[in-house]
């Protein structure tokens, strides 16, 4: 499988990038201000959450608006990619029924598209950090391994959703409920470890990979705290396993997808 994966990535990797560019371009083409929405969207939600949780519920996390913005940027990436991957094969029927393409390449395309938007969004985060005068330390570099982990974990989950999405009609209903639950458990607008009584709060930030990633990003960008290397390794290896099993699953079944849709 390793050899096949390497060859396929070499052969179709470029396609996923060109295709991602094309889709981004298509989104902008209808109106030149469309790209503004890629930034305005998280900003508006950040303002809403800041108002509700900062003012109404009196949240006291330091740098609260940025705290939320980091969570939203990473979560949106994860949420979008997963939701899209369920219908991905069906949406690309035109292509899938005419040429052979390793189906996870379709996920890769979505990852580039959503990843690009996430990076824009994090650009705003860095701007806000300057604006709010967050003390910047070398620990901000820890953000990079967390982004890598986020990509890997999201890709792993997406391979499974792509596969089962072909066969299970109402998967998207189930997943949207599951994702909503995970959204609240992940602590986009509150600090899980301090809001939920010990020891459960600590557990929830470690055993929930999304909470782990978002907490890790906040610790590095906002608070200059050291990263938990052991747990990072644990989740990196875990995600890698997820990716390997997922790609294997797709390789084994992908040529039957077209018989179903």
């Amino acid at each position, binding site marked *: 499988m390793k050899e096949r994966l390497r060859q396929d990535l070499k052969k179709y990797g470029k396609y996923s990038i060109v295709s991602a560019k094309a889709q981004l371009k298509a989104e902008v083409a209808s109106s030149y201000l469309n790209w503004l929405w890629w930034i305005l969207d998280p900003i508006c939600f950040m303002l809403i959450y800041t108002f509700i949780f900062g003012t109404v519920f009196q949240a006291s996390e330091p740098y609260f608006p940025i705290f939320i913005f980091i969570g939203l940027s990473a979560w949106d990436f994860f949420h979008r990619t997963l939701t899209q991957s369920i219908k991905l094969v069906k949406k690309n029927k035109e292509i899938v029924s005419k040429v052979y393409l390793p189906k996870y390449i379709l996920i890769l395309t979505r990852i580039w598209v959503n990843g690009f938007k996430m990076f824009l969004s994090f650009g705003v985060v860095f701007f806000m950090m300057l604006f709010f005068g967050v003390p910047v330390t070398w620990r901000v570099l820890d953000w990079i391994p967390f982004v890598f982990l986020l990509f890997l974990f999201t890709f792993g989950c997406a391979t499974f959703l792509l596969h089962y999405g072909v066969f299970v009609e109402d998967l998207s209903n189930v997943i949207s409920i599951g994702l909503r639950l995970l959204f609240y458990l992940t602590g986009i607008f509150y600090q899980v470890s301090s809001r939920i009584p010990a020891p459960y709060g600590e557990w929830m930030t470690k055993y929930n990979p999304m909470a782990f990633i978002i907490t890790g990003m906040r610790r590095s960008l906002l608070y200059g705290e050291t990263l938990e290397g052991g747990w990072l390794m644990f989740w990196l290896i875990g995600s890698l396993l997820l990716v390997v099993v997922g790609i294997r699953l797709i390789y084994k079944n992908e*040529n039957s997808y077209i*018989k*179903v849709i």
Partner: protein
Amino acid sequence: MENAIEVKELCIAYRSLKRYSIKQNFFQRKPKKEDVFEAIKQVSFSVEKGRILGIIGRNGSGKSTLLRAIAGIFAPDSGTIDLKGNRVSLLSIGVGFEKELTGRENILLSGLLLGFSEEQIQEKIEEIIEFAELGEFIEAPVRTYSSGMYSKLAFSITAVLETDIMLIDEILSVGDAKFKKKSYNRMRELISDQNRTVLLVSHSKETVESLCQELLWLHDGQIRMRGETKQVMQAYEEFMK
């Protein structure tokens, strides 16, 4: 002569792959009866390198399924398909076109999707553009194209980026009268190339008789007859009366 395609005991069925929903699992205890449709049953044949094999048969006899299986889009349920390492493509036009991109960008996109490398495409891109006769429109978004221009571009990509084995589901000729003739001639040229192995599905007697060296007659997913074009065609016409 060496073989370019070897198909052994190929079976393809559409079965048990129906979509199901979680809701159904809750409310229906008994699973629905499975529909089995065997599109291809125990088909074996081989094609020598450089030959042109026509495939005939009435609608629903499994011709397109067979082509898709050889192209690697379908998985066989049993049996094997050996292409001896040859590059294969199912001729289809306009795959993966993105309307907002320019013609030039779409050539790259479509070419990559067909499995060519960027260098191979760049090498041929001028030839494609020239063949498509689009002039300055090549730099304009595809959404501004007329349908004739669109199919000209799409055809040119498949006609210029060629592979060792070509699978053709009905010969295409597109565009206005002049381009139709040009594209038809180009197809003939591609098909007749000495080094290219071609499987051609067609309902047109004229096309089949003028192009194919051999014919394979599929009937209900099985090979009914294989042999020289004239004989098979005669038997087939007799049968269809």
